[in-house]
C-alpha cells in the first residue's frame, strides 16, 4: 500500500524541505454510568512509509490494562485493548513525531500540484491494465460512497471531457470544492456521499466519499486515506496549534496518486497518513463496544506542533 519507492532515508538532500511534526491526538470517551467492560480499537498512529518517517509513536491509555498492536488488512496500525475495571472515562492519547517530505522527494518524478507523473495512464491503458481485478475493492461502491443519478451523470460528463484519469481526479475535486460548503458538525460519521451532496455541505470525509464515489464510477480505483493535517501550510516552527484528523483520497493511474478533495490540492508537508481503506468505516480512529447503557459524549483534540 505504499506510494513510491524512492530513497527517502537521506534527509540532508532536502534540507529544510523536511518538516518534523509533533502530533498529540487525545480522545476522551465519557460513559453515562460506570462501565465495567469495554473493548476498543484505535487507529491513530501514523504509518511509516515513503513520504513520511515516524520518529516516535506512543499511546497512553487510561485506564490501562495492556494493549496489542497489529496491522489490519489495509495496512493500518491498530492498537487494540480492553478494560475490565469500573470506569466512566476512557482516555487515549496518541503522541507521534513524524517527518514529512515534499511531494517531489518521492515517487517517480513526484506528483505535485497539477503536474503529471511520467507513468500517468491514459484511459485506454487503465482499462487494459489488470488493475480492475487487483483493485476491485477500490472500484466497488460502498454504502458511504455510492452515488445517485445526478452524481453518476456528473461523473459521466467529467469522464467524457477529461484527458486522462488524473485530470478527471482533479476535475472532480475542483467540482466538489465549488459545490459543497465546508461545514463542521453538519454531517456525522455515518453520513453518505449522497446525503452530503444533497445537503451541499460536509466535512473532509464527505468530500472524500464523494470524490471516491465519482472516480470509482469512472472505473478509476480510488481509496480513502485517514490522517492528520497541520492547518497552516506556512507553519511557524515551535508553535502548537489545533490540528485535525483529516481525510483525503488516492486514485490509481499506474501509481497511487494522493489528492485532497476538501482543499482541491495535492497533499504536502502538512498531511500525515495514518491508514487507508475503502471508506471511513475501514479506518475509524476509534471503534469499540462496551456493556452498559447507551450514549455519552466524547472529546477529541488534535494538537500539532511543527518542530522543524
Amino acid at each position: 500500500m505504499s506510494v513510491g519507492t524512492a530513497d527517502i532515508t537521506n534527509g540532508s538532500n532536502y534540507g529544510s524541505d523536511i518538516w518534523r511534526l509533533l502530533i498529540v491526538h487525545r480522545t476522551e470517551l465519557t460513559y453515562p454510568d460506570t462501565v465495567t467492560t469495554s473493548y476498543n480499537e484505535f487507529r491513530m498512529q501514523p504509518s511509516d512509509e515513503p513520504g513520511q518517517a515516524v520518529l516516535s509513536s506512543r499511546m497512553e491509555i487510561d485506564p490501562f490494562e495492556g494493549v496489542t498492536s497489529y496491522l489490519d488488512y489495509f495496512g493500518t496500525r491498530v492498537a487494540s485493548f480492553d478494560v475490565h475495571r469500573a470506569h466512566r472515562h476512557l482516555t487515549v492519547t496518541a503522541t507521534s513525531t513524524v517527518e514529512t517530505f515534499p511531494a517531489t522527494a518521492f515517487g517517480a518524478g513526484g506528483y505535485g500540484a497539477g503536474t503529471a507523473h511520467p507513468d500517468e495512464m491514459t484511459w485506454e491503458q487503465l482499462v487494459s491494465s489488470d488493475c480492475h481485478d487487483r483493485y476491485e475493492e477500490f472500484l466497488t461502491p460502498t454504502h458511504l460512497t455510492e452515488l445517485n443519478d445526478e452524481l453518476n451523470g456528473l461523473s459521466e460528463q467529467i469522464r467524457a471531457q477529461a484527458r486522462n484519469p488524473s485530470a478527471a481526479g482533479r476535475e472532480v475535486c475542483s467540482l466538489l470544492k465549488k459545490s459543497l460548503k465546508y461545514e463542521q458538525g453538519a454531517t456525522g460519521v455515518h453520513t453518505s456521499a449522497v446525503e452530503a451532496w444533497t445537503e451541499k455541505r460536509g466535512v473532509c470525509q464527505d468530500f472524500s466519499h464523494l470524490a471516491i464515489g465519482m472516480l470509482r464510477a469512472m472505473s478509476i480505483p480510488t481509496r480513502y486515506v485517514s490522517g492528520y493535517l497541520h492547518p497552516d501550510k506556512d507553519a511557524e516552527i515551535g508553535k502548537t496549534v489545533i490540528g485535525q484528523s483529516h481525510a483525503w483520497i488516492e486514485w490509481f493511474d499506474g501509481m497511487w496518486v494522493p489528492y485532497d478533495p476538501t482543499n482541491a490540492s495535492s497533499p504536502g508537508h502538512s498531511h500525515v497518513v495514518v491508514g487507508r481503506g475503502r471508506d471511513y468505516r475501514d479506518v475509524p480512529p476509534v471503534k469499540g463496544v462496551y456493556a452498559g447503557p447507551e450514549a455519552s459524549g466524547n472529546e477529541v483534540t488534535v494538537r500539532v506542533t511543527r518542530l522543524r
Partner: protein
Amino acid sequence: MADLFQDYPFGRAWDEMFSGPGVIRPAYESVHAALQTLSAADLKARADIMGRTFLDQGITFALGGVERPFPLDLIPRIVTAQEWKVVQTGVPQRVRALEAFLADCYGPGRIFEDGVVPRRLVTTSPHFHRQVAGMAHQDGARIVISGVDLIRDEHGAFRVLEDNVRVPSGVSYVLENRQAVSQVLSEAGGDSQIRSVAEYPGRLLAALRAVGPDNVSDPTVVVLTPGVYNSAYFEHTLLAREMGVELVEGRDLICRNNRVFVRTTGGEMPVHVIYRRLDDEFLDPMQFRLDSMLGSPGLINAARAGHLTIANAVGNGIADDKLVYTYVPDIIRYYLSEEPILLNVDTYRMEEPDHLEYALEHLAELVIKPVDGSGGKGIVIGSHADASTLSKARQAILENPRGWIAQREIALSTVPTLIGDKVRPRHVDLRPFAVNDGNSVWVLPGGLTRVALPEGELVVNSSQGGGSKDTWVLAAPESPRTEPDLEQQSSLPAQPEDMEPLVGWQESEAQSTGAFFFDPPVTPDDDGAGLRHQQGQQQQHRRAAATAGSPTALPDGQSFSSTPAGQ
C-alpha cells in the same frame, strides 16, 4: 412377500440397490433379504417406533418454529469399501487444497498473482472477512470439520455438489441413525461388516485439542452454541456431551487481554479451543455485528494473539462460495500438483460471457443456483420451472452475474425408501464428515444420507421436508471391525447465576471534525488553556437490538444445504 418392491420403477437415475429390474447389487443382498421377510405393516410399525424414540430423545430439528423428529427411513444406504475409497481419498484432498487456498487468500495471495483464479473472486465474496487477514497461526487447521456434499450421478460416480467448511452440521444424525436402525432392523446387517461411526466424537476432540494454541500443553475445549433456539441445538448438546466438554453460550465467555475464560460455578476457567456452532458475523460484536448477543467481544483478537483457536476458522466461507467451487479443480492442481479425485458437477460461471450466453439459451435444461444460498433457497430447476420463473431467473442473473451459477441437471442416485406400504426410489445425497487435526484428514466412515421424501422431489433438504437414512460403509473383507469404547463424561454447562446479564454492546466512535481549508487560513488559539475542545462528530450508537436468548438470529452455517438435480 415381494409386495414391497412390486412395480419398483426405474428411471434415468442410478439406483443404489438395483442394477436393473430384479437385479440386486451384492452389497444390498442381506438388506433386501431381510426386507423380504417383513410386511409393509411390520416396516411401518418399526418406523413408528423409530420416530417415537427420536421424539422422546429430543432428536429433532426446528422447521418453521416447530420441533419435529428428523424423518429417518429405516432402509439403509450402503456404500462398499471400493466405492468408499474415492470418498476417503477425495474428500481429504479437497480439504487440503482448500486449507492452502484459505491460507493464501488471508495471506500472500499467490494464487492471484499467478493468475490461477481472479482476486476479485474472493474480494467480492461476502464471506471474505478482512478482520482475520494476516492471522497465520491456524494455517493447516482452518478447516477442522468439513462436510463436503456428494451426489452420485447417472453412472454411479461420486460428484461434489458443494463444500461446507464453515459450520457443517448433521453429524449427530449419523450417530443417532445408526443406533436407531440397529435396534429396529437388527436382522438386516447380516454378515456384512458395517464400519462403526461411534468414534467420531473421540476423533473430533482429539483434533480440536491438537489444533490448540502452540504453547498450551493441555488445551481446554468448549462447544459454543447460539442457544436453545438454534435448529441444531440438539447436535451441539450431543457433541459436547460425547466429547465431555462444556457447552457454552457467548454470555458464558469473557475475553480479557486476548485470553478467553468460561464462567463456571467454580470460577473462571481458561479456554483454548472453541468449537463454534455460530456464524462468523455473530461471533464477536467488536469485529462484526454489534447487535449480536450470541458471541463474545474479543474472540477475534484472542485468536489473533495466538491464545485461542476457533474451529472452524473465521472467514472460511469464501471456500463455500459456489463460484469458488467452480475453481476447486484448479485449486487442487495449483497447491497440491494432483489431479482431483472427486469430480465437480459441470458448472457455468455467469460472469464469463460465453458461459452466460450458453446458460441463458439453455435455462430450461439447467439448475440455477445463488452462489451464496443455503437450504435450497433460490434454486431454480429449469426443467420444472414455468416461463415466468425462468424469466425472473434470467433477469436476476443479468442483474447480478456474480450472484449465480448454472449447473447441468444431474439425476441423483436413488435408494429404496418406505413410502406408505410400498418401497419406492427416492433421491439421495451424502454428506461425509471429515476431521482435520492439522496433520491429516480423517473421514468418518458413514456420513449423512439425506433423502428427498416427496416423489420426484429434487431438492434434498431437511428444511424442504427431507429425511435421512443410516449410511453403512462396508469394511473391506480383510479389515477388522473396530468398535472403540467411547469415554462419556457428562458435563453440563454451568449457568453463572451471579453474573449480571449484559445490557447490550454499545458502539464507541469518535472522530474529530474534518478538514481545514488553506484558504482562508485558520488561526487557532495556541494558548494551552484555551485549546478548544473539538466536539467530535455526532457519536452514533446503535442499541443492541437482540436480547439475550432471543430467537431472532439463529445462524448455524449451512445446516442441511441443498441438493438439487434433475431426474
